[in-house]
């Protein structure tokens, strides 16, 4: 019996098949042509040809955020690989699993400044979870299997696999085998919370009079929103979500007090500031949440649960640190609370909620829309919410529109809200939405964007035509880099240095040029009808260009260097 022999390129594809990969997002080039040839000769995995490698990374990322499955990117050496850097960093900051297969020049040429040679392993070192360089044919299956394992366990993140041309070529063949049951002596994602710490956490919670649950992206990544909701309902305490954690509890739940942080609700930030115990679940006390760390919640005992020990006590000291997977720790906590016969202190709880309701009554998200004036961006988001029944996937770019969407579209479920929270990457929205639409062709998938952001990956309209990805793009067009402009208004004496968008293109014509439908909305009276019309078109991408009030600011907003609850509520009005 002879064993069948395979080229490295074939091994790449066979390894991905063995790992049940459905899609590769990529762009061809010299060093990876052998892989493209291998892809051509099979039909288990579909390759999606984007128009820029950055979009491949964001598309894989969006696909992953919506489905939980690891996204795979393929790029050629040199410029192809460096074009992935922003997308890798975006995934890294938000702990999104991703495997990036990057071509490389032949091993014999590495170090010679060969054509299209860049040290992509070196370039990406600070923005990846790990990387592999395949030096020989037999390294390939192992490296790919390990890359998937590392990307998707513990705190997830992107992994780069570098593939030199000489390990891929047809002249070089070997037997194929892959072991997907990975064990690594240097890597044991610590999964269960320490019993002693769980007990301590439960006791701290039991003694609390003003408890708040602060939960984040960890809940979404681990698909544990139902467990979180159960926990929160046991505690009867208020719960706030981070920008990355929206949908972690239903946005309409009566214990939900909105997003916290820089553009969070007043009630969320006030509740944090006045709490005596903060139960932090899958969060990292980002500076956009805490505001000035020196003034952060001085009276609170902090219980911090996270899978990544480096996140604990990095910026804010945790009194009760618990390292572990948040879904497991929450279950441990629920069990322990039962064990100690936990019932919330009724009187304390009712006082606490009375107080919170006073903050709620301020209605910090309210805004002023006059019927004859320009459309307020918030109104557009509200209309979208109504028309899509609150059930759409909303993929955002970065800027004011992102914050308006986060504030005014109460997400019912996790994975519904997809945005670049950690890195804040303009250009993320459209390719991310494409990844989601590919996974869920029958769902409403919205790309909410700005006139600035959409132009950072607008070439992907072409990919949408090729693969029939009818997302609905809603551009809150304020003829400016609104978020920059807002800061310039508030901090730089209204000097709008390079924050306006002159010579904007006719987006409708652009959409049409790619074979899509364009819808222009200029006035309030046509807003709902035209948006309804846009969402009724199922088989074509619709680009909705909405002219909104360019003077509108996002409120509430943290007052810089202040405490978490020191906020601007509107122009010139402090909380």
């Amino acid at each position: 019996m002879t064993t069948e022999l395979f080229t490295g390129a074939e091994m790449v594809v066979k390894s991905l098949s063995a790992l049940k990969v459905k899609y590769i997002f990529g762009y061809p080039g010299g060093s990876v042509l052998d892989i493209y040839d291998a892809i051509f000769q099979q039909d288990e995995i579909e390759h999606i040809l984007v128009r820029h490698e950055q979009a491949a990374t964001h598309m894989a990322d969006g696909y992953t955020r919506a489905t939980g499955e690891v996204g795979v990117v393929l790029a050629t050496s040199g410029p192809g690989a460096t074009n992935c850097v922003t997308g890798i960093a975006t995934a890294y900051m938000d702990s999104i699993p991703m495997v990036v297969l990057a071509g490389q020049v032949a091993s014999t040429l590495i170090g010679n400044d060969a054509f299209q040679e860049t040290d992509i392993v070196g370039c990406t070192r600070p923005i990846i979870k790990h990387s592999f360089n395949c030096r020989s044919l037999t390294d390939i299956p192992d490296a790919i299997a390990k890359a998937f394992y590392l990307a998707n366990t513990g705190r997830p993140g992107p992994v780069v696999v570098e593939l030199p041309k000489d390990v891929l070529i047809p002249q070089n063949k070997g037997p194929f085998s892959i072991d997907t049951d990975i064990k690594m002596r240097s890597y044991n994602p610590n999964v269960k919370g320490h019993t002693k710490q769980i007990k301590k956490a439960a006791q701290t919670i039991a003694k609390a009079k003003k408890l708040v649950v602060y939960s984040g992206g960890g809940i979404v990544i681990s698909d544990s929103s139902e467990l979180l909701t159960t926990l929160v309902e046991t505690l009867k305490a208020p719960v706030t979500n981070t920008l990355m954690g929206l949908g972690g509890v239903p946005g309409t739940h009566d214990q939900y007090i909105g997003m916290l942080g820089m553009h969070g609700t007043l009630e969320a930030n006030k509740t944090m500031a006045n709490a005596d115990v903060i139960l932090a679940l899958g969060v990292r006390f980002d500076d956009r949440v805490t505001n000035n760390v020196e003034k952060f919640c001085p009276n609170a005992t902090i219980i911090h649960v996270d899978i990544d020990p480096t996140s604990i006590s990095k910026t804010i000291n945790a009194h009760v640190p618990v390292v572990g997977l948040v879904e497991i720790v929450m279950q441990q906590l629920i069990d322990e609370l039962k064990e100690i016969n936990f019932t919330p202190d009724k009187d304390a709880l009712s006082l606490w909620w009375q107080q919170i309701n006073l903050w709620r009554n301020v209605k910090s998200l309210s805004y002023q829309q006059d019927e004859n004036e320009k459309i307020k961006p918030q109104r557009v988001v509200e209309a979208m919410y109504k028309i899509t029944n609150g059930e759409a996937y909303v993929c955002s770019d970065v800027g004011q529109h992102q914050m308006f969407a986060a504030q005014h579209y109460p997400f019912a479920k996790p994975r519904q809200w997809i945005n670049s929270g950690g890195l804040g990457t303009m250009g993320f929205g459209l390719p991310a939405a494409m990844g989601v639409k590919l996974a869920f062709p029958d769902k409403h998938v919205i790309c909410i964007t700005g006139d600035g952001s959409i132009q950072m990956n607008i070439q992907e309209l072409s990919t949408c035509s090729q693969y029939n990805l009818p997302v609905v793009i809603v551009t809150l067009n304020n003829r400016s880099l609104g978020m920059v402009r807002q800061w310039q208004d508030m901090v730089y004496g209204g000097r709008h240095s390079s924050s306006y968008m002159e010579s904007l293109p006719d987006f409708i014509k652009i959409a049409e040029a790619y074979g899509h439908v364009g819808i222009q909305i200029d006035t309030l009276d046509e807003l709902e009808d035209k948006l309804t019309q846009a969402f009724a078109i199922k088989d074509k991408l619709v680009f909705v260009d909405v002219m909104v009030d360019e003077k509108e600011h996002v409120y509430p907003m943290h007052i810089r260097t202040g405490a978490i609850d020191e906020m601007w509520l509107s122009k010139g009005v402090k909380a």
Partner: protein
Amino acid sequence: MRRILAILMENEPGSLSRIVGLFSQRAFNIESLTVAPTDDNSLSRMTIATKGDDKVLEQIVKQVNKLIDVIKITDITDRKHIERELLLVKVSAMNDKSRTEVKRITDIFRGNIIDIGKQVYTVQLTGDADKLNAFINALQNETEIIESARSGCVGMARGDQALRI
């Protein structure tokens, strides 16, 4: 405060650069760093001397531990431990006086003159950082230092404690 960290990691290409990259990326201080394979060739042992307050040190230890290649890291500073560094120093030995003085100081510090040139002596000394500094000072008072090279410290806990897999 000065801290000595002992690290055991996979002896893989790229491991060292991940550690060094981490220190520069997160603005951690490196006073010295030594690395070599252990008796088990699949492992590398590294000693890093660094500075920082408790909070920074906690982050350094956690961040290094988070690197996939790293198997173990311990801070041996507060334990009973052995710390050694190797110094090679080439000094001017032009006349009888300087030759005698170098020989005398070397003997006092229990170093060895390991090479001689027409006008130079090369001396080897091991010890902790303080001893090496004192030796260099003493030499400087008597003669001219032409070249010196220090290995950076290697460290190990005393007694039965061991950093191994």
